[in-house]
């Protein structure tokens, strides 16, 4: 089946005075219809820049240097600014991390969702209002008629994130990018919002790119997972396959550093070393300096991406000939 969104060798670099930061450096993935893909990685690995690149919202000094983003058969990077603006919020929508600062404080929340509809569709104000109230009901906001007239500061974080989900869904997007949508919320509310996102995927058939640093969120929500490290996707595959048989030493290290209920361990196993400066990336494999299985050639050449199981890809020399030596 033709994927809904396909990213090929996307590179987004930041040109700062201190040098070039290769925040996203050649990532490729596809997003199928109705699928939830998790993009995981630690702070600064390029997750958010990847999502902003998909929306073409990267600001100076950042720039998309090369690659292709094919969405519904069109390369987004070849579109004019105006064509791209018409897609944003319409076919491609986005939810941000902090619900409390995601809405304009001087207008009512309802009017802002209605505005999101009016930007893209020729409907009357009354009809936009009707649709907004229906959306608010869909995302589980009680008493939507009254809530419509309230300002962002009158909402709780969880309710406001529901409003943001409603706003993102305003024009029935086929791709929803959720950049850390639950990070700023507490755990019970997190579960509610994640359930809401899954339920909406089932109901509207939208594909979701979920960006997070939280493996628990991934386990709960995603169908497939891509693990990012320093601007590259090091491992990607179906959820079960990644969680049960992580292949890349970085992914293995990530799992070893998460506490588990079912095992009693004295100490968690951290990944040794620190993330290298993005200004001065190592040649060869980027995980080389911290990798327990580092080999001389890892320092020289970039490891190829190999497929170890159906749909499970990993960028590491260990798996070049079928498994770790």
């Amino acid at each position: 089946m033709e994927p809904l969104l396909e990213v090929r060798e996307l590179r987004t670099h930041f040109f700062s005075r201190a040098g070039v930061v290769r925040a996203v450096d050649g990532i490729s993935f596809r997003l199928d219809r109705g699928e939830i893909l998790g993009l995981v990685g630690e702070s600064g690995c390029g997750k958010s820049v990847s999502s902003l690149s998909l929306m073409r919202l990267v600001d100076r000094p950042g720039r998309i240097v090369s690659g292709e983003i094919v969405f519904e058969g069109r390369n987004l990077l070849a579109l004019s600014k105006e064509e791209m603006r018409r897609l944003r919020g319409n076919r491609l929508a986005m939810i941000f991390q902090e619900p409390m600062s995601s809405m304009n404080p001087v207008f009512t929340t309802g009017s802002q969702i209605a505005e999101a509809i009016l930007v893209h569709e020729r409907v009357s104000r009354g009809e936009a209002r009707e649709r907004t109230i229906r959306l608010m009901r869909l995302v589980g906001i009680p008493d939507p008629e009254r809530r419509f007239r309230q300002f962002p500061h009158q909402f709780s974080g969880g309710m406001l994130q529901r409003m943001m989900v409603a706003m993102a869904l305003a024009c029935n997007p086929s791709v929803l990018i959720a950049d850390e949508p639950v990070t700023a919320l507490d755990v019970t509310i997190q579960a509610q919002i994640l359930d809401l996102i899954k339920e909406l995927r089932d109901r509207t058939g939208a594909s979701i790119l979920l960006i997070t640093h939280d493996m628990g969120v991934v386990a709960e929500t995603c169908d497939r997972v891509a693990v990012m490290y320093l601007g590259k996707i090091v491992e990607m595959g179906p959820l079960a396959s990644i969680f049960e048989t992580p292949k890349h030493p970085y992914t293995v290290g990530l799992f070893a550093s998460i506490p588990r209920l079912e095992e009693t361990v004295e100490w968690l196993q951290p990944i040794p070393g620190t993330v290298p400066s993005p200004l001065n990336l190592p040649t060869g494999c980027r995980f080389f300096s911290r990798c327990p299985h580092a080999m001389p050639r890892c320092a020289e050449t970039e490891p190829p991406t190999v497929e170890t199981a159906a749909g499970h890809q990993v960028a590491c020399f260990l798996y070049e000939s079928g498994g770790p030596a």
Partner: protein
Amino acid sequence: MKWFRTLPNNLWAFARDYKLAAVGGALVLLFVGVAALAPQLAPYDPDTVSLRESLARPSPRHWLGQDNQGRDLLSRIIFGARMSLYISVSSIGMGALFGVALGMLAAYYRRLDMAIMRLMDVVLAFPGIIVALTTIAILGRSITNVIIAIGIYHIPQFARLAHGLTLTIKETVFVEGARASGESDAAILTRYILPNCLAPIIVQTSLLIPGAIMTAATLSFLGLGVPPPTAEWGSMLQNSLQWAQLAPHVMIVPGLALMLAVFGFNVLGDGLRDAMDPRLKKR
């Protein structure tokens, strides 16, 4: 209209916490009221000459006395208030309109930043009165040109304020969200950035009005402002100079009016600034 119902309470709370500002507010209200109702309040036509009563002292018929041409000083002060208010509000309004637009554009489109803000710095480098004098020298002497002259000097002050505010607001998540939902630049500037930087701009306006009143009076005093015989406080002061020893009231009356109006705006502006700045909140 919730704010409308709570307004009396809010005003009362403001007056209680900022007493000096409340006095200023009363003076400003008086000034604006007098200016608005000038034709109804003035007992005489401000321009009617009566040479037999030249420099007459205050009397029951002319409460504040008469000037060297026998014109009623009270009426001239009242119409002078109207002129001062008209000039100061129009010139600050003009400065705010162009300044805020330029400042927002400079901050939003980084390409324009250097050109616009450095030009503003150039204007700001000169003292206000020099800019105003030069503008009058180029455009000629009329009320409109006085407004333009004072307005031009205030453009950079508003531009700087709006520039700084826009730089902060355009980095907020809700502006990024607006872009992600496909809003155009024009919509982001007018619906997201402008409403969120309005409060400091309003305070700035009230703080700059007294300066504009002074500058207008100064221009008239120097003979480059409102052309005679129109009643204007600055030109009344200038005219009074020759008779200062003979009839001091001719000088004191417009001087006092000018002082009270400027004082009123200044303390009101200070109070508003403090009240709107949560860090300086008294309670």
